[in-house]
């Protein structure tokens, strides 16, 4: 039997949430959901885990802080110490208050750009990438649940279709994949 993919379209976010809850309760595995905006509450239903991007961002920030500390020490204390208005240039710690703004800015710089890049790479959203939403209306006002038979061996195609049709479906497309 060829694998089939169901694209179940709903015309409202609440209908999508209700349908997803019903389908998952029946043991059907939902592969993905396409929506024009974040539908709050869908993640736990279809089993999307919490993202770890914030942790990544914190690590980028820490990297930035350390690099900025290393840089200020190297440029201002170690490599070419200068006497500027008699300000202490013998040890990093004495001179540190003057470095706080740059250490802060550089940490923010690394945190923001590191996280943004990770976000784009993890999503696979990069310039020129092809769009993969099943229907152009999913970026306007329609919501699609994607179900593949491969994940749902317990059900036959007609069985799945019947269960899906029991929800408030707007449109249903079944394709080979």
């Amino acid at each position, binding site marked *: 039997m060829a694998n089939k993919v169901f694209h179940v379209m709903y015309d409202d976010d609440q209908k999508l949430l209700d349908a997803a809850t019903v389908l998952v309760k029946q043991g059907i595995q939902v592969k993905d959901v396409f929506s024009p905006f974040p539908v709050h509450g869908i993640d736990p239903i279809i089993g999307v885990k919490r993202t770890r991007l914030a942790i990544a961002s914190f690590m980028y920030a820490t990297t930035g802080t350390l690099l900025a500390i290393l840089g200020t020490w190297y*440029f201002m204390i170690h490599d070419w110490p200068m006497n500027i208005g008699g300000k202490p240039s013998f040890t990093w710690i004495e001179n540190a208050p003057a470095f706080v703004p740059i250490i802060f800015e550089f940490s923010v710089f690394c945190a923001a750009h590191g996280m943004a890049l990770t976000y784009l790479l993890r999503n696979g959203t990069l310039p020129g990438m092809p769009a993969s939403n099943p229907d152009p209306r999913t*970026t306007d006002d329609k919501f699609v649940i994607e179900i593949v038979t491969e994940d749902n061996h317990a059900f036959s195609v007609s069985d799945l279709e019947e269960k899906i049709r029991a929800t408030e479906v707007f449109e249903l497309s079944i394709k080979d994949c």
Partner: protein
Amino acid sequence: MIKEAAIRRPLILGHKTYHDITNDVVGPIEGNAPRQWKIAISIAAVIALYGVGSIMYLVGTGIGAWGLNKTVGWSWDITNFVWWVGIGHAGTLISAVLLLFRQRWRMAINRSAEAMTIFAVLMAALFPVFHMGRVWQAYWTLPLPNQFGSLWPNFNSPLMWDVFAISTYFSVSLVFWYIGLIPDFATIRDRMVKPLPKKIYGILSFGWSGRAKHWTRFEEVSLVLAGIATPLVFSVHSIVSMDFATSIVPGWHATIFPPYFVSGAVFSGFAMVLTLLLIMRKTMRLEAYINIAHIEYMNIVIIVTGSIVGVAYLTELFISWYSGVEYESYAFINRFSGPYSWAYWMMMTCNVISPQLFWFKKIRTSLTATFLLSIVVNIGMWFERFVIIVTSIHRDYTPGAWGEFHPSVTDIGFFVGTLGIFFTLFLLFARYFPVLALNELKTILKVSGESYKNADKH
């Protein structure tokens, strides 16, 4: 579903559906450019070209082409720099601080406010860069290994802090703005029929498909970026103020400067947002999304920040007397009674008195009054920077060196030119970009939309 308190005013007026929001925002992009837009961009582009010409003349001649002299070494250049950076701050405040405070009204205005931030910071950056004189050596401000040994820039200097602050601020704002734009570009891509625009918006949308996991990440990134953009925006204008505050010039070295500059920046930024949005909502028929409630909220921010600025002016004045330092006192007596007193009183009227008019509900809910006052505030905030910079240095310790500043044609051309470049960029944005965060707006439709909010009453 979340229910909003009935007492809160609806943010999206009329009976809108998700599809209506898409139509209202994307519609103007699909249609032909309206005549007013063509006229406006032609005027702006001519002014921008005049600015480019002035800049080229400046680079060719050297910064002697400005009206600066031995006594007044900083004037319009740095005034314009601080003015533009300040204007930029409202965008980040709206998109980041209001996001952290979960203010839903930000969603209608954040996109254009952020665009304004980016263009304003670009304009700001032109001034210090061209003030360097040999602009092709601007990269010397970065700590790059070089043939001098290596000789590094001075990390103790607030001017160096500024390089880091402004470049971080600009690039982070740009990324924050663009990440928000990606899903909206995808909406435009999926609607476009003509192949070329479809292709262009396809590239701009990075292949966004709106998967559940991607939206989770999107919200996390928005929240964390807002969290780090908030201290960033406060740090940037604090650092800008330290360009003055860490010096030992009477009138400049005041510890009150950082908070005073930050509130002034938000004050002027909101004024500029209002100026731009009042025109945009009318010409692009966005009255349902940017309504009186939004304008009133922004005017309230203007009262608050304007009052903080007013208190700061008076505190400065009091402390200059209370400090007992005669040079400090003189700097301020000279400010309000010297040759530049007209600028001082202009600043006081525009920034301290005029925003207080917004205490009257009639005035803060009137579009005409808001528009006029927003321009008054912009003028006032320009004069604030001019007063701080020029009046503090035009009379120093040696009366023989006292002088005054007279702007040259190049000074004026450069400043007016940046206005032209700014408006050209903003008009291009308004024409080709989604001017409202349309997909974010859809998330508040059922909570704050008029027809949904009052649905139970019918």
